[in-house]
């Protein structure tokens, strides 16, 4: 079973307590009415579908209930880092270097 570190609880817990919540760092446009249909469709539906390190959201559903962000390798399921929602996107090259 995958163990996931919750940045709010400060504990590393089994994945069963968590729920996946899609790609991270997707910003809702501030004024949707000024978006073209293409731009809006891109915001709503188009995702990176990364093979490898992926920035994604998780929720500690059966725990503190918070959403947080993680970088997970979609091939190996390895979590490089988890960090609180609202924190800046960590530098991927540094993460991969630290993981070696």
């Amino acid at each position, binding site marked *: *079973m995958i163990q996931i570190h919750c940045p709010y609880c*400060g504990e590393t817990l089994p994945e069963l307590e968590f729920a996946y919540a899609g790609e991270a760092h997707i910003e809702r446009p501030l004024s949707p009415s000024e978006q073209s249909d293409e731009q809006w469709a891109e915001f709503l539906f188009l995702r990176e579908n990364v093979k490898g390190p992926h920035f994604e959201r998780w929720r500690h559903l059966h725990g503190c*209930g918070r959403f947080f962000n993680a970088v997970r390798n979609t091939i190996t399921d390895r979590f490089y880092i988890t960090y609180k929602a609202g924190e800046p996107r960590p530098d991927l090259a540094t993460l991969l270097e630290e993981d070696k």
Partner: protein
Amino acid sequence: MSKHISSLAPSVVVDTAAARVAVSQLIGRISLRARGDLAAVGNAIGVALPTKIGTCAKADGIEVACLGPDEWTLLVSLNQIEKVEDALAALYPSLPHSMTEVTGREVTFTIEGPQAVDLLSIATPRDIASIKVGEARRTLFDGATVVLWRDAETSFRMDVWNSFAPFLATTLETGAKELAAELA
């Protein structure tokens, strides 16, 4: 109050050499969400809010567990709950927060006995040993979200939503009997 919705009456679910499971007496419950001046909340309810997730605080007739960064659950004796509600309601103008009385939402199982930890581990993915005595956690038990309080090494309380309670009682009963059968 919403207390009349509770489904299971206080009773012993199972009592074996391994563990004893019982449905507790009715107790008042409040779900509290707040940010900002937590000291003011502490003064109002008479017990300082713990801020580390999983830690608890206790005072006369009231028990608080921190479930999330801005979320607490309060167990209050029935004769004090209106007083606590009024004290929190008086804070609304100065400190907007969310206080919901959820007495009828949950029932509490007490689980104790030499193999209480083994009994819980049959349906909890997390390591029970990571919950220290005097702490509480919201976690998963047999597919349902529960709040697990550890009162002593082998004594726990589990707050369960009503709709899951009969199902979880059956799981606990089966587990306690199996563990007792291994002892025999």
